[in-house]
């Protein structure tokens, strides 16, 4: 029976090609608009490390001026000072911990055919790799001893290893950066992150890091961060005074494996700040925060307001398209009252008429869904062209394709429900009179 109704539906749709096209295009456009924006929204906000996002916590301490909060709404500063980062690293109270900052360094390739180039990387501790779990292609992370010994070692990203060593296993070789040789201990494999969640202070969709080196080494070489630096008091002259100052320029993450550990770490932070207060620092009330990955992403608005507004508008647009489809289906089915009356008089039950017309709506939905999928692909291409930094979040995955089709059929069937219900209430007798 389903096949027969499908055939009837198709035939009826072919009879009014313009009306059918209107409905299909309407659903297609509505689906495409909502799925394009929803895909971007979904990937932007997607949890980058679902298996442990509640264990990784971003450390925030409020060392800001007594007269002037860092954020007007009272949130603590978004980075920490060098002295606090080092104190927390040395205390080692968390299960794993990594302070980090962004660094731009010139790379001088051994291969003289390559010109020296500027490269953006990350300065951090050995625990970084165990906490954020990038996969290694060759070698591995440096160890905590190398952190302590300020070792001149480096982990390269996949792309830069490709550029410098043609993608070969370069572990054990050296790379010269700003006149200093570093020996390569590891090379990362592809590390596809939708957002660079471990450092949101310089934009969630900035380019991936090309190298990683120990924090202690970079400080030895007096390397200043390429990220944001904020001071509420001008530091005195000299590098040591800068390190000792209340300027914030470091991101600090800790891994805490259980809620109990989290509570312990919270009280540790409170007592740490309490002691610093005795030294005359931290003039503001205690305002420590330990947000986990998803909370931190929400706090930093990884999903931009524009994308939220666009998604809202796109769904409102889909609503208009659906209302439009309801109207058109209603018109179409009402015109077929005579045919329905005839079928009913010949013994078809209401249920059968209902099934027949619902299938017809379903066909419209399915066609609209495929058209919508096609247009969603185009829409995402357009988004990538308009927002160059969104290339990681403007792509279709299988779950979104499935969502598109389901959304299309559900909307069309929902839109078809009322017209179908009206259609099967046709009184046979009224239609058979001339």
């Amino acid at each position, binding site marked *: 029976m389903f096949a027969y109704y499908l055939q009837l539906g198709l035939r009826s749709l072919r009879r009014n090609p313009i*009306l059918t096209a*209107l409905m299909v295009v*309407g659903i297609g*456009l*509505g689906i495409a*608009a909502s799925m394009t924006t929803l895909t971007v929204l979904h990937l932007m906000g997607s949890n980058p490390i679902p298996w442990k996002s509640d264990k990784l916590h971003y450390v925030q301490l409020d060392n800001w001026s007594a*007269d*002037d909060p860092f954020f007007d709404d009272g949130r603590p500063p978004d980075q920490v000072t060098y002295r606090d980062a080092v104190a927390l690293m040395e205390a080692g109270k968390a299960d794993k911990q990594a302070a980090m900052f962004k660094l*731009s360094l*010139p790379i*001088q390739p051994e291969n003289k055919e390559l*010109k*020296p*180039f*500027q490269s953006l990387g990350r300065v951090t501790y050995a625990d970084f790799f165990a906490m954020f779990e990038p996969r290694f292609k060759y070698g591995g992370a440096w160890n905590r001893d190398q952190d302590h010994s300020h070792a001149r070692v480096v982990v390269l990203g996949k792309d830069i290893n490709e550029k410098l060593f043609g993608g070969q296993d370069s572990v054990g070789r050296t790379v010269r*950066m*700003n*006149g200093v040789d570093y020996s390569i201990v590891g090379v990362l494999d592809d590390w596809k992150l939708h957002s660079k969640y471990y450092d949101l202070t310089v934009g969630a969709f900035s380019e991936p890091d090309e190298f990683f080196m120990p924090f202690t080494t970079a400080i030895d070489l007096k*390397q*200043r961060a390429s990220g944001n630096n904020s001071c509420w*008091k*001008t530091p*005195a*002259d*000299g*590098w040591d*005074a*800068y390190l000792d100052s209340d300027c914030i320029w470091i991101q600090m993450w800790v891994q805490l494996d259980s809620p109990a550990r989290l509570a312990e770490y919270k009280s540790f932070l409170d007592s740490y700040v309490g002691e610093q207060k005795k030294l005359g620092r931290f003039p503001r009330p205690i305002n420590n925060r330990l947000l986990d990955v998803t909370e931190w992403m929400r706090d930093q608005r990884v999903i*931009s*307001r*524009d994308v*939220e*507004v*666009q998604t809202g*508008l*796109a769904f*409102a*647009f889909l*609503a*208009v*398209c659906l*209302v*439009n489809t*309801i*109207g*058109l289906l*209603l*018109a*179409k089915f*009402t*015109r077929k009252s005579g045919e329905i009356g005839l079928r009913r008089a010949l013994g078809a039950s209401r249920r059968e008429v209902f099934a027949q017309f619902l299938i017809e709506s379903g066909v419209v939905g399915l066609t609209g869904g495929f058209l919508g999928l096609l247009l969603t692909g185009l829409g995402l291409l357009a*988004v990538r062209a*308009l*927002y*160059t930094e969104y290339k990681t979040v403007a792509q279709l995955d299988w779950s979104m394709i499935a969502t598109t089709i389901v959304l299309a059929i559900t909307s069309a069937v929902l839109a078809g429900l*009322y017209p179908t219900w*009206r259609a099967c209430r046709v009184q046979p007798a009224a239609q058979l009179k*001339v």
Partner: protein
Amino acid sequence: MELRPILSALMRSKVSMILIGLQVALTLAIVCNALFIIGQRLDRMHRPSGMNETDTFWFGSNGFGQGYDVKAVQQSDLALLRQMPGVADATSTNSVPMSGGGWGTGVNLQPKQKTQTARTTLYMVDAHALDTFGFNLVAGRNFKPEEIESHTQSERLQSAAVIMSKALADKLFPNGDALGKQIYLDDDSPASTIVGIVERAQQPWVWADNDSIENATLVPTYLPYGNSTRYLVRTEPGRRDEVMKAVEQKMSEANPSRIIGKLRSIEQVRREAYAGDRAMAIILGAVIFALLGVTALGIVGMASFWVAQRTKQIGTRRALGATKFDILRYFQTENFIITTMGLIAGGILAYAFSLWLMQNYQSPRLPWYYVPIGFLCLWALGQLAVLGPALRASRVPPAVATRSV
């Protein structure tokens, strides 16, 4: 005009009427708010930077290795740039308007002041800056070459003389007598004297609101970031692209132990800074376009259906003496009534939508005139959409009434 028969006919197909009305209502609400957002974005994108944007470009030079004398390289680079053909002037600077990265600091009227009087960006430049940026000096004087100080990152910034934008000067000294006054660029720095005021100079951060975007101060300082220096170059009109190529080559040749970063024209800096706003405007524009299209086609579809359904009645009316024009007017009026009801609901919806945006996205209130203008546009759209089916209706011959089925 006999409204009663139209109304009673409408009452018999309430659902269709409600559907069209709902569609018109949603369309009005979305279009008004989307147009308003587009307008705001266009306003933002067209805020003037105060500098010459057409003939200027900037780039960075990153030296490497021990023994790289960043200051000597800066001096020779500037000398080289200034004598290149097609170059009007050049300066070293830490940042330019709209570039998204720069130096921000508090500015105070008293030493050791507890809360800042205002915040400003600092452009660390030399005596060629006014000429290179193209900032328009409206009071006072330019920096003198001997005022330019050289600092390293680990030293405290001190400048005896500063030049600032008129917007910032007026904020600090509302009486308009800023020239010659002293300010403090930090909580306990020595005083700086305002020696010049420029008409307009924008901050590097385009997200700044209109109130603070022109808080900018020029200080006569050279401060390399490690081994990095940035240069701004202004060319003779029309020669920018050609000079950019020549400069890129010359700079790389002049010193092999450094990397010349990407050269960016200030026009490109502006494009990149506002890419998000531009994208938002284009996306909302596309939504408006598609929405109006779908709504118009929906009205056409519905009206065609009604015409087909009522062919017999139309024939009867024509047979009873109604003119073609009467039929046309009937359908136009019917559409007008439905659209108007939708628009009234849509007006309320538009303000509700705006309220939601205000509460969740700190968006300003929708100006009142958007809704009346939206009314006019959608009335016109409805009348145009129904015109085709209505004309078809008016051509129904009276003889139809005499045929059965």
